[in-house]
Structures are given as structure tokens and as C-alpha cells.
């Protein structure tokens, strides 16, 4: 039977997946471009 102590030990820390991080970083970059922080990105 699981005890509260075991439950605490069994809980994994909440983490964003790689996919979600990629979305967060890309959206942040898009907002910075929109806000004019990065005006021109050369290629």
C-alpha cells in the first residue's frame, strides 16, 4: 500500500518537454521581433 511518504518520493518534478521549450523560445523570439527589440535579422 502506498504511504504519503512513498507518494512524495514517487512524484517527478514537473518539467516542460523539449517540444514545449521550443515553442516557448520561438514565441518569445517572435514577440521580441514584434516589439522591435530585433529589427533586422540578416541571412
Amino acid at each position, binding site marked *: 500500500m502506498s504511504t504519503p511518504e512513498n507518494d512524495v518520493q514517487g512524484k517527478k518534478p514537473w518539467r516542460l*518537454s523539449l*517540444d514545449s*521549450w*521550443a515553442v516557448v*523560445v*520561438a*514565441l518569445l523570439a517572435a514577440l521580441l521581433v514584434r516589439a522591435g527589440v530585433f529589427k533586422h*535579422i540578416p*541571412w
Partner: protein
Amino acid sequence: MADTVAIPQVQPVQPALRFLRIIPGVLLLAAIGYAGKLLEQNVGGYAKAHRWVFPNIEYVLWAILLGLLISNTVGVPEIFRTGVATYEFWLKAGIVLLGSRFLLGDILKLGGVSLLLVAIEIAGAIAFMTLLGRLFKLKPKLTTLLAVGSAVCGVSAIIATKGAIDADDEDSSFSIAAILALGALALFTFPLIGHYLHLGDRAYGIWAGLAVDNTAEATAAGALYSDAAGKLAVLVKSTRNAMIGFVVLAYAIYWASQGQAKVVGNKAAFLWQKFPKFILGFLLISVLATYQFFNKEQVGALANLSRWAFLLTFAGVGLRTNFRDMRKQGLRPFAVGAIGEVVIAVFTLGLVIGAEKLFGF
């Protein structure tokens, strides 16, 4: 003697330290990618000035070739490995940013056609790979992994399915090695076949998105042909990726009914867990671009950011491909994968040519 056994304490890695560890590898990806860009600009011009006959090689291929050269000669030193593994992150961030170059109407139109083609491709590929696995007497779960890898989306699909059907580590290593080796071959053969058959950018892009397994290789195979083909390859490949949850769920239910995997409890939560979230980011950026949240210059800046992210991905594709490691995995799963891939490539080429005549895209 004491009864207790000392268990070594594993110290959790601090986030700051984890961030520092990725820096050398990311710098290596950037250096190789940028070297590819410089080679594209300079080698062609130099050959022309000296009247040499030299094919015009794009930065995509240079970056992959430089990565392959390092990986298969001196190897990737330990210090760079954590950062090199971030190439998947750059790929997904690049796809989200690429959404700025698609208007929602285009996505709905092309997405509708590609969804139909993807559904036919997935059903055909799974049926054929299952038959082939039985003919070659492969283990049933290895056959499942190869079928999912070649029908849906390469390595991510294999990893997702492995957990859901309790497959062996060895089987998943076999499948991943076969899919990666075949993806590397597709990079070089698909553009040649496309040019030989005089395929248009759209038809080629859809074909690459349907038939090349791993997202990074599909993106590179498309970009090697043309910018427009690269965009379409990403769109079609993302449609395939969106199906991952449904295919993995179907296999999880099948293997659970055979008593060889855990029963899936909450199916909606399972689907959400397996769904690639970068597709939602791609759609969100596309909606914002459609409703002119970004002006023309900003769309251009986002497109360039996406190109830089892909540049790091292409360098990573070369660096993580090691032919010696692939050879160690054995011939039979590779042979099944290779036969399957050739048949799927021919089948999807027929589908695309048929759909082009029918829908006129």
C-alpha cells in the same frame, strides 16, 4: 562487517550547469552551419572564376557533409555531445518560426490534401512493413517499431511506441539505427530523383514530407531541392507527426489486448501526451501572421531566424550520423527497413503525382 551498503548519492545537475554544458556543442553546430554557408558562397564563385566544372552545392548539404566528416573521422568529443543533441530543439523552434511564412488559408488547403495523403501513406506503410516483418521473421515488437518509424515520424515515433508497448531496448536501437541510416540515404537520393523526374517544388516537397522518415532529414531533403519545397516538406511532415498519438495508441491497445503491454487508462490524456506541441506553436504563429500581427519586415526577420535554427539542425544531422555504429546493428532489420522505404517512396511518389493531377496543387 557492517550490514549496511553505501549507495552512492547522485547529485542532481544544477540548471545553470546544464545550460553551461550545452554551450560548446551549440557553438560547434553554429560553426559548422556557418562554415557551410561560407562554403556555398565561396566555393561556387571560386570554381566559376577558375572555370572548373563544379556542382552548385547549397549550405544545407555543406553543413551535413562537414558534420558527417567530423562524426565519421575524429568523432564528436564528449564536451560537445550535450550541445550537439540540442539539434532537435533547434529543428522544432525553426518549424514554429516557419509558421510566419504560411497563411492560414494555405495551411487549410494544403493541410487538407496532405492529411488525405498522409492517412493513405500511414495505412499503406504500416500494412506493408508488418507483412515484410513477418516474411523476414522479425520479432513482432521489432516489426511494430519499424512500421511506426517508417509510417509516421522516425525516431520520436519509435521512442513513443517503445514506452507504450514495453518493447526491448535492443529492438528500439535496431529500429532507430535502421531509420537513421535510411534517412541519411534519402537525403542524397531524393533530390537526385526529384531532379531526374523534373518534379515541381510543390510535388517534390509533398513527396519528401510523406516519404522521408525523420523530421530533420525530411526538412533537409526538402531544403536541398528548393526553399519552396523545404516549406512544403515541413508542412506535410508536421501533418504526419500530428498522427503519432493515434498510431501509438492503436498499437498500445493492440499489445495490451495480447497481454504484452500496460492497459492505457485515460486515452485523451495519452493522445495529448504524445501530441507534438511544436505543431500548435507553428499554427499559432501562422494565425498571427495571417491576421497581420507582424508587418512585412518582421515576417522576413522571423523567416531568417527560422533559417538560422535550421542551419544548426542540419549541422546536427551530420554530426549524429555515424556509419560505424549503424553497421553494428545488424543487417536484417536494416534490410526490412530498406525494402520498406523503397516501396513507400515509390508508393508515395505515385500518390503525389496522382494527387497533383487530381487537385492541381
